[in-house]
């Protein structure tokens, strides 16, 4: 690839130093230690995809155990070695490690870093009209810290004592005492170290996203003209900034307990009849700190997916998003409320019933802004000229999953019901629909939609449709039955149920779930093939394949570093002028001045058109 010797100057309005550095691209600076937000976004994406395969693969292994408890797993020995016991069964402690790593990988590495990292990086500068992030260096650092964290977490999969095994929520005392299970030994230490780097990476990324959105918007891009994707990334970054330090605080105390003799989370523990010296600590304290991050974290995962969906649904329904301001308002509402509901994960820790009912009410209130978003998606689709692109299908799929999963949240939010449902498969079903599958659908929708801008080529639609239908039907078949299993009382994280007569009638259902999971997982390889094959062989993308209004579609087919070859475009209108009455075309990009569309202007727009300054 020929790299032109064009000078790249630091883009910054108020920046003090304007070092004009030459942009001699070579492979390393262009693709590895790149400062270009688009490359960094793709790095996050590829790492996220890598982790998704690992995380999904782990779940298939434990689903084999759950669905086919009598199966001989000898054939997995080449892969798992001594984690397959002599009788050809999965080692029980390794089962816990699998569940733990599946959760950790999916929540943090795929749906936080892979989703936010990819799309915040890729889309923020492109959609607000900036040349790059506020600090390219911090951005690069953010990726490489994530990479380091990934390497450490990956290594922990292969160590002698196995990776962390205390669940993705790493509750002490289990996680604090290496003598408790093998997964609380070195694996847990590596988990904590990896998460420290992960937190640092998220904070660096978040600080950058926020200051970019505040400072680098192009002329005319007021906050009320920002696409909802950008609003979602903005609020997500704020949530992360407020909650990740708390996870750090929580994890650091655990590190002290594990390795430096303190007893923040430990008290009155006997192992093998012998008392440990720790007194005065409380494991409940850990849960408070953890869930103060943990609950906002679930919204850190879902908000970007919801933002992406807003954009895709509006574009492909050829209609303005319904209730733009209500969408922003409800995201803000969700953001604020997400900090005051954490104890709904702790209803059964012996908290006072009065406190429980306060958290119950706050939790149920969250359903209101969530429902507003759901209704707005549906009303946007209502009577639209819908174009069923793969991205659109996945977005609609997200709406469906978000609603089905949200409804079960309302069950769980009732402190009385939760006494029964807590830690059963009902919870697993709830969050896999509302968070896991929804956010995954949002991520995939985003990839299908912005692939043309990322790689300059189109993905194959037919494969996309097959991928969608298999995945959509698949995730419902996997997670819907789990509600019944949960209501029947199956606890989560149990290795096997064959010893309980009460559960024997659910053996078939578990088998069914496992089979569906394997098929759904398999279907993802269609996507992977499509993704990599289209990079080389895909049809060349037009500049604006979806006839969309936002700024990224005004860049060249494959934008270079700096995004726009000439001037940065000016913005004259909000991003959702689709099918505007009076207009001939069914979309009016943000760069078209109001003064040139008198036929479709609304009364107040006609007013502002009079004073509009249009550059030539």
């Amino acid at each position, binding site marked *: 690839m020929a790299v032109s010797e064009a000078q790249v100057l630091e883009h910054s309005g108020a920046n003090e130093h304007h070092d004009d550095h030459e942009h001699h691209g070579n492979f390393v600076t262009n693709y590895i230690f790149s400062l270009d937000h688009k490359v960094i976004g793709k790095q996050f994406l590829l790492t996220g995809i890598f982790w998704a395969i690992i995380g999904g693969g782990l779940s298939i292994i434990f689903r084999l155990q759950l669905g086919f408890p009598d199966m001989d797993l000898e054939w997995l020995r080449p892969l798992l070695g001594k984690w397959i016991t002599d009788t050809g069964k999965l080692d029980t402690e390794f089962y816990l490690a699998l569940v733990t790593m599946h959760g950790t990988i999916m929540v943090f590495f795929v749906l936080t870093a892979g989703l936010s990292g990819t799309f915040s990086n890729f889309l923020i500068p492109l959609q607000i009209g900036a040349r790059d992030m506020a600090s390219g260096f911090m951005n690069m650092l953010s990726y490489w810290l994530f990479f380091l964290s990934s390497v450490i977490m990956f290594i922990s999969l292969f160590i002698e004592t196995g990776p962390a095994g205390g669940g993705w929520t790493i509750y002490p005392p289990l996680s604090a005492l290496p003598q408790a299970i093998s997964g609380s030994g070195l694996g847990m230490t590596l988990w904590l170290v990896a998460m420290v780097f992960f937190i640092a990476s998220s*904070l660096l990324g978040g600080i950058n996203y926020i200051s970019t959105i505040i400072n680098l918007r192009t002329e005319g891009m007021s906050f009320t003209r920002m696409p909802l994707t950008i609003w979602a990334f903005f609020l997500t970054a704020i949530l992360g900034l407020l909650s990740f330090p708390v996870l750090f605080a929580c994890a650091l105390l655990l590190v002290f307990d594990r390795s430096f003799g303190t007893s923040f989370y430990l008290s009155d523990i006997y192992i093998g009849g012998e008392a440990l010296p720790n007194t005065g600590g409380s494991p409940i304290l850990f849960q408070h700190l953890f869930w103060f991050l943990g609950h906002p974290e679930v919204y850190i995962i879902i908000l970007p997916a919801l933002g992406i969906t807003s954009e895709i649904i509006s574009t492909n329904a050829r209609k303005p998003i319904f209730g733009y301001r209500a969408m922003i308002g409800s995201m803000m509402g969700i953001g604020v409320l997400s900090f005051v509901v954490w104890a709904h994960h702790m209803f059964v820790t012996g908290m006072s019933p009065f406190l429980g009912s306060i958290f119950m009410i706050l939790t149920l209130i969250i359903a209101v802004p969530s429902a507003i978003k759901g209704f707005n998606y549906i009303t946007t689709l209502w009577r639209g000229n819908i174009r069923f692109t793969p991205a659109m299908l996945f977005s609609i799929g997200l709406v469906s999953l978000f609603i089905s999963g949200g409804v079960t949240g309302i069950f769980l939010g009732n402190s009385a019901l939760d006494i029964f449902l807590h830690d059963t498969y009902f919870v697993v079903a709830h969050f896999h629909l509302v968070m896991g599958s929804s956010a995954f659908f949002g991520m995939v929708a985003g990839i299908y939609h912005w692939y043309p801008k990322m790689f300059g080529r189109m993905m194959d639609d037919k494969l996309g449709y097959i991928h969608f239908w298999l995945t959509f039907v698949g995730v419902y078949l996997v997670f819907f039955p789990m509600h019944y299993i949960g209501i029947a009382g199956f606890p989560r994280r149990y290795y096997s149920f064959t010893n309980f007569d009460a559960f024997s009638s659910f053996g078939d259902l578990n088998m069914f779930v496992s089979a569906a999971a394997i098929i759904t997982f398999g279907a993802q390889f269609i996507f992977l093939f499509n993704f990599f094959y289209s990079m080389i062989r895909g049809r060349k993308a037009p500049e604006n394949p979806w006839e969309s209004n936002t700024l990224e579609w005004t860049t060249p087919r494959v934008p270079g570093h700096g995004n726009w070859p000439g001037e940065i475009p000016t913005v004259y209108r909000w991003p959702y002028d689709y099918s505007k009455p009076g207009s001939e075309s069914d979309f009016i990009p943000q760069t078209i001045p109001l003064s040139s569309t008198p036929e479709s202007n609304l009364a107040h727009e006609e007013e502002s058109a009079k004073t509009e300054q249009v550059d030539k």
Partner: protein
Amino acid sequence: MDTAFPLKRKDKGTSFKLHPQKVALWLFLVSVFMLFAAWTSAYVVKQSDGTIPDLEIPLMFDYSTIVVVLSSVTMHMAYIFSKRNQILNIKISLLATALLGVTFLVMQCMAAVEFTNAGGYWVGHPMSSFVYVLAGAHGVHLVSAIIFLVIVVNAAFRYRVHSKSMVRIEMCTTYWHFLGGLWMYLYLFLTLNH
């Protein structure tokens, strides 16, 4: 990615603009604040258990608090002097600040010794470990502020800190005052909660 477009220095933008590095600093401060908010809330939750060991907060904290307040005063003087271009005074007050900062850290270490002697062990009841965590984490941040300060001092000696080049010293002042304020908060928190 075979072209690199000229990134123009004078790109147009929104009229609503803040200094990007300052915004980044403020956001960083927010996350530091959240860190300490988490620990102090955890402390309160722990305290409400009722099993509080009888521990005295070291007397040395009273003195170190005075030192940190003084350092904020000298830091602010440096800031005002740079606005007025009084180069010599900038250097003096910056050095004084750095000196006070180091003194503060030494006093915090002495406080730790005092605390240990009075039975407040690191390995022991969480309530005493918390004192170390709070003061220690604050100290670590203060070390980073001293490093920042040294960078500014270095710039001052090269005549790079004056009324037309204020960003660095402004940011340093912000950070310093923030850490001073944070310590005041921790000090009051610990003394009033005991």
